[in-house]
C-alpha cells in the first residue's frame, strides 16, 4: 500500500516536472533560509552554556541612578572583587577580569642581530586565577590554579602562542613585553576559546600585575569612585541564594565603601545566562544578541517557510482537476479516503525530503558568506549536530503536514462520479478563493519585509550622510602610546608632519570628536559645593583640533595654547543640562573636575553641538581643554588628492619617532561608519530575506498563472474568435493578481508602519516614515508580479485560437 503510494507519487512528480521543480526549489530556498536562521539562533543561544556552574554564575554590574533612570554598566571599581571576597563569605568564588584593549607586545629584542617582533592583540585581559575555577576553559600546559598567581605572568591560547613563538610547545617560560615596558613570563597555555563565548581570551595576564606596586593602576585599587567599564567581577552564588536579597546586600555594600556622594552609583547582579542577550550592558569584545532580535529573525524564518508552503498548497489545489480522474478510479476500485490522504501526503513528503536535501546544499554553500556578513563563526559540519538533525526532521514533518494535509483532504474528498467526469463546480470556486487568500498572505509577508528593508536602507543612508557638526572627511587618526617619553617627541613629530606636502593640519587629542572610547565625569559648576548629577564627556585636545575639525563656536573663544588645563570650552548640550539659555552667561564661570584644584578653570568658549557618539544616541554634555598628558591620538587632515603618498610619509615619520611601537591608522569616516555595523548587517539580512520572500512568492505566482493559462486556453480561444485583442487578454490575466497585491498591501502597509516605527523609536537621529517608502514597496511588488505573470499571459494571449479550441 505505502509502496504503491510512493511509487505513484514519484511518477506523478516526474510527469509534472515543472510544478515539481517550482515546488522543490521554492520550498528548498524557504527551508534553507529557515535552516540558516536556526543555525544563527542556535549559535547565539549557545553562548557560555558549557560552564559547569552556569546557573550560579553572576556578573556584578553597576547601576547608576540618574534623573533619567537607571543606567546599567558592565564595569565596577577596581577594589570590588577583593572587597566582595571579604564582605560576602557565603559567595563561593569571586574573580575579577579586566580587558586591556589594543595591547602591544614585543617579543625578542634587537640585540644579537635579531629583530624584535611587535604584535597587537585586542583580546588581552588581566585575570585572577579564580576565574578559571568559575569558567571551564581548558589548559594545555601550566597549572590553572597557580599559573596566574604571581605578578607579571601570562597565559596564551594555543593559536596566540603559535603566533608569538612559532609553536606553542616552545612558549612556556619565555618572556613577552607589554608595550616596550614590563616583561611577562609565559606560565600557561590555554586551549583556543570556542566561538560561542563572550570571553574571547587570547592573552591572559595575571591580575596581580596591575595590583603590584609600580603599576599604573596601583593607586586606583583604593578608588571606589572611578568605574572602569572594562573591569568586570564574576561570582558564583550558593544554590538557593535569593537574588533580590543579594541585590539589597550589594546596596549596603556600596553604601559602606563608596563616598556618600557616589552611593547612587549602585551595583546589582546580572546572571551569566542573560549576559549575551542584554544589549544595555557591554560585553568585552562580542556583541549582544537581544532576545527580541532572536524573536524577530525566528519569525522571519517561520514566515519564509509559510510562504514556501503556500506555494505548495496553491499548486497542489490548482492541479486538483488533473488529479481528479485518478482519485475517481481509485475510489471506484475500493480505496477509502484515508488511503488517498496517505498517498497525497506521501507525495508532499517526497517533495519535502528533496527540498530539505537541496536546502542543506544551499545552506552549506551560503554559510561562508553568512559568517562573513554577520561576523559569526558557524561551522560547515553543522549538519552533524543533533539539534540541527532534529530541526530538519521537525521541518519535514511540519511542512509535510502544513503543505500536504489541506490538498490531500480536498483531493481525497472528491465524489468519485464527479471526479471521473472532471465536474467540480463547487469545490473549484472555494479552492480559488482559498488560493487568493494564500496569495494575499504571501505578498503580505513579502511586502512587510520589503517595507522593513527600505526603512532600514534609508536609515543607514541617513546615518552615513547626516552632518555630524564636524568635518570628518580626509582625516587620518593614528594612535600612539602616551607614556612620558613618547609625549616629549610629539611636538617634533607635528612639525615634521606639517612639512609634508599632502598634509594640511595636525592635532593631538585624547580621542577623535566622535569615538567609540569615552571618558566622562561629573564636575562642580560655578564654585558649587556639590557635583553635578550628570556626567560630561571629556575631550582633551590641543587648539588645532578646532580648526582641523571645523568646530564652530557660538560664544567666547578657544582656550589658549597650553599643555595643561587653564581654560575650558563646553558644548551647548552642557549648558542645556545646567539650564543656561544664553551661552554668553556661561563665559567666565568656573568648572572643577575630579575635586582637583588644578582642574579648576574658567569657561572661555561654547562650541556648537557635534555628534560625540553614534547617531543612535543623543549628544551628551562635553567639556574640552588642553591637557597634553592624556593625548594618545594624532589627528591628521590630508589632501584628498595624494592620499597614498601622505599615508606613506605619516607611517615613515611615526616609525622614526616611536621605533619600538606598532604603527596603525584609521580614516575617521571609516571608524564612524563602523558604528552602524549592526544596522548595516540588519539591512543586508533584510535585503536577503525580502528578496527570498519575493522570489518564492513569484515562483508560486508563476506556477499559478501557468496553470491558469492552461485551464483557460479554451476561454482565451473563444474570446479571441469573438474579437478580443491581445492586450485585453493580458489584462484579463494580470487584473486578478494586481487586485490581490493591492489587497495584501492594504494589510502589509499598516503592519510595516507599526513594526518599523517601533524599530525607529530606539534611534535618536531617525528618518520620518513618509509615504515614499510605502509607494515604492507597492510599486516594486506590482512590477515584479507583472513581470512574473507577463510572459505567460502574453504567450497565452498570442496562442492561435484554432488550436486551443480544437484541442478541447
Amino acid at each position, binding site marked *: 500500500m505505502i509502496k504503491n503510494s510512493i511509487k505513484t507519487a514519484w511518477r506523478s512528480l516526474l*510527469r509534472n516536472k515543472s510544478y515539481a521543480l517550482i515546488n522543490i526549489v521554492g520550498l528548498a530556498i524557504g527551508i534553507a533560509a529557515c535552516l540558516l536562521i536556526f543555525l544563527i539562533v542556535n549559535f547565539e543561544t549557545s553562548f557560555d552554556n558549557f560552564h559547569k556552574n552556569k546557573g550560579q554564575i553572576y556578573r556584578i554590574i553597576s547601576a547608576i541612578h540618574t534623573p533619567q533612570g537607571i543606567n546599567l554598566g558592565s564595569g565596577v571599581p577596581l577594589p570590588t572583587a577583593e572587597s566582595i571576597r571579604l564582605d560576602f563569605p557565603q559567595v563561593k568564588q569571586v574573580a575579577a577580569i579586566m580587558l586591556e584593549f589594543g595591547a602591544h607586545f614585543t617579543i625578542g629584542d634587537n640585540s644579537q642581530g635579531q629583530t624584535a617582533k611587535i604584535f597587537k592583540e585586542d583580546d588581552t585581559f588581566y585575570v585572577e586565577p579564580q576565574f578559571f575555577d568559575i569558567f571551564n576553559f581548558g589548559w594545555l600546559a601550566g597549572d590553572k590554579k597557580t599559573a596566574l598567581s604571581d605578578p607579571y605572568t601570562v597565559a596564551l591560547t594555543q593559536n596566540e602562542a603559535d603566533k608569538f613563538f612559532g609553536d606553542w610547545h616552545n612558549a612556556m617560560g619565555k618572556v613577552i613585553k607589554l608595550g616596550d615596558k614590563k616583561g611577562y613570563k609565559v606560565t600557561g597555555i590555554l586551549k583556543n576559546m570556542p566561538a560561542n563565548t563572550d570571553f574571547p581570551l587570547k592573552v591572559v595576564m595575571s591580575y596581580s600585575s596591575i595590583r603590584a606596586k609600580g603599576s599604573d593602576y596601583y593607586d586606583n585599587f583604593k578608588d571606589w569612585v572611578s568605574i572602569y567599564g572594562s573591569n568586570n567581577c564574576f561570582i558564583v552564588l550558593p544554590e538557593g541564594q535569593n537574588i533580590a536579597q543579594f541585590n539589597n546586600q550589594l546596596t549596603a555594600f556600596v553604601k559602606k565603601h563608596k563616598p556618600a556622594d557616589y552611593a547612587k552609583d549602585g551595583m546589582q547582579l546580572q546572571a551569566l545566562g542573560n549576559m549575551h542577550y542584554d544589549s544595555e550592558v557591554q560585553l568585552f569584545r562580542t556583541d549582544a544578541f537581544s532576545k527580541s532580535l532572536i524573536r524577530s529573525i525566528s519569525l522571519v524564518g517561520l514566515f519564509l517557510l509559510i510562504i514556501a508552503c503556500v506555494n505548495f498548497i496553491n499548486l497542489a489545489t490548482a492541479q486538483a482537476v488533473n488529479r481528479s480522474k485518478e482519485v475517481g478510479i481509485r475510489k471506484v476500485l475500493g480505496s477509502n479516503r484515508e488511503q488517498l490522504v496517505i498517498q497525497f501526503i506521501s507525495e508532499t513528503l517526497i517533495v519535502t525530503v528533496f527540498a530539505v536535501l537541496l536546502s542543506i546544499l544551499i545552506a552549506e554553500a551560503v554559510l561562508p558568506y553568512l559568517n562573513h556578513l554577520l561576523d559569526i563563526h558557524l561551522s560547515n559540519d553543522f549538519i552533524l549536530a543533533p539539534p540541527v538533525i532534529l530541526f530538519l526532521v521537525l521541518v519535514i514533518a511540519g511542512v509535510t503536514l502544513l503543505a500536504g494535509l489541506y490538498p490531500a483532504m480536498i483531493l481525497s474528498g472528491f465524489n468519485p462520479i464527479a471526479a471521473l467526469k472532471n465536474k467540480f463546480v463547487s469545490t473549484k470556486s472555494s479552492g480559488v478563493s482559498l488560493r487568493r487568500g494564500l496569495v494575499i498572505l504571501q505578498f503580505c509577508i513579502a511586502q512587510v519585509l520589503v517595507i522593513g528593508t527600505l526603512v532600514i536602507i534609508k536609515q543607514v543612508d541617513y546615518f552615513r550622510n547626516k552632518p555630524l557638526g564636524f568635518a570628518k572627511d580626509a582625516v587620518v587618526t593614528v594612535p600612539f602610546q602616551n607614556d612620558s617619553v613618547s609625549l616629549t617627541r610629539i611636538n617634533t613629530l607635528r612639525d615634521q608632519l606639517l612639512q609634508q606636502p599632502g598634509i594640511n593640519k595636525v592635532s593631538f587629542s585624547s580621542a577623535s570628536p566622535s569615538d567609540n572610547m569615552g571618558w566622562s565625569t561629573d564636575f562642580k559648576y560655578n564654585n558649587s559645593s556639590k557635583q553635578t548629577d550628570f556626567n560630561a564627556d571629556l575631550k582633551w585636545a590641543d587648539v588645532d583640533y578646532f580648526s582641523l575639525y571645523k568646530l564652530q563656536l557660538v560664544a567666547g573663544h578657544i582656550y589658549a595654547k597650553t599643555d595643561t588645563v587653564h581654560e575650558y570650552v563646553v558644548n551647548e548640550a552642557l549648558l542645556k543640562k545646567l539650564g543656561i539659555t544664553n551661552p554668553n552667561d556661561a563665559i567666565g564661570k568656573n568648572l572643577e573636575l575630579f575635586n582637583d584644584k588644578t582642574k579648576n578653570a574658567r569657561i572661555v568658549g561654547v562650541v556648537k553641538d557635534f555628534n560625540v557618539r553614534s547617531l543612535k544616541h543623543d549628544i551628551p554634555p562635553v567639556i574640552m581643554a588642553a591637557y597634553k598628558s592624556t593625548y594618545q591620538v594624532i589627528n591628521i587632515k590630508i589632501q584628498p588628492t595624494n592620499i597614498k603618498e601622505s599615508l606613506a610619509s605619516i607611517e615613515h615619520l611615526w616609525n622614526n619617532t616611536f621605533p619600538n611601537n606598532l604603527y596603525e591608522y584609521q580614516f575617521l569616516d571609516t571608524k564612524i561608519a563602523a558604528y552602524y555595523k549592526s544596522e548595516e548587517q540588519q539591512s543586508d539580512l533584510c535585503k536577503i530575506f525580502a528578496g527570498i520572500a519575493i522570489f518564492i512568492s513569484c515562483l508560486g505566482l508563476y506556477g499559478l498563472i501557468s496553470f491558469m493559462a492552461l485551464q483557460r486556453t479554451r476561454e482565451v480561444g473563444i474570446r479571441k474568435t469573438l474579437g478580443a485583442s491581445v492586450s485585453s487578454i493580458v489584462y484579463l490575466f494580470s487584473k486578478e493578481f494586481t487586485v490581490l497585491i493591492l489587497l495584501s498591501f492594504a494589510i502589509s502597509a499598516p503592519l510595516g508602519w507599526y513594526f518599523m516605527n517601533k524599530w525607529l523609536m530606539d534611534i535618536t537621529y531617525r528618518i520620518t516614515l513618509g509615504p515614499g517608502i510605502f509607494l515604492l514597496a507597492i510599486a516594486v511588488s506590482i512590477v515584479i508580479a507583472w513581470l512574473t505573470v507577463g510572459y505567460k499571459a502574453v504567450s497565452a494571449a498570442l496562442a492561435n485560437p484554432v488550436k486551443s479550441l480544437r484541442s478541447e
Partner: protein
Amino acid sequence: MIKITNLEKFYRTEEVETIALNKLSMHVDTGEFVAIMGPSGCGKSTLLNILGMLDDPDEGSYVFNDIEVAHFTERKRADLRKHNIGFVFQSFNLIDELTVFENVELPLIYTGVPSAERVKRVEEVLDKMQIMHRRNHYPQQLSGGQQQRVAIARAVVNKPKLILADEPTGNLDSSNGNDVMELLTDLNEQGTTIIMVTHSEHDARYSHRIIRLLDGQTVMENIMI
C-alpha cells in the same frame, strides 16, 4: 442478485430540480447479462452509479445479495463494492502513472491481498486477456483496444460477482469492440453477472435482456433469444 424498488434520484441546482430516476423498479438475477439502453439523459448512468454503489438513491430500496444497501455509509458501500463489483468504463480510466501490471494489481491492494498472491493473480488474468507481453507498459503506450482489455482485466482480477460496464465499446473501432464484447460474454458464461449500459443495438444483442429507460423509468424490456 439485485432487486431495486421505487428507486428515486433527484439532481438539484439552485433553480432547477431534475428527476434522474423516477420510481424505478427492476431486478437482475445471478448469472444474467443485462443491457440498459435509452437516449441521453434518461438516467442510465445514474442507475449504473447507484447499482455500483458509487452513489446513493434519494428514495426507494436497493437490495444487493439480500442486503439492503440504499442507505449505507460511504465506507460500508466502498467495502461491499471492492469485494463484489468490477467496473469497465467507456474511457477505460486507467491510471496514467501506473503500468499495466500495477493498474490491474490496484484492486487487490485495496482488498488487502498479500503480495505474492497478487502477482500470481494479476499474471493469470493478464494472460487470459492476452496482454501479458504489455505488462510493463504504461496506458498511453497502448492502443484503445489494449487499454480496454487492461481495464477489463482490472475489473475481473478480484473475481467480482457483478461487472458494471458503461459503454465499454464507445471509444473503440468495431473490430476491437467486438473483441471486448466476446470477452464479456466469456466472463458471463463463466458465471459473472454483467450489467452494461450501451447506445449500440449491436452490442445489446450480446445480452440476455435489454431494459429500455426513458425519463428515469423503465419503458420496455426485451428478452433476447
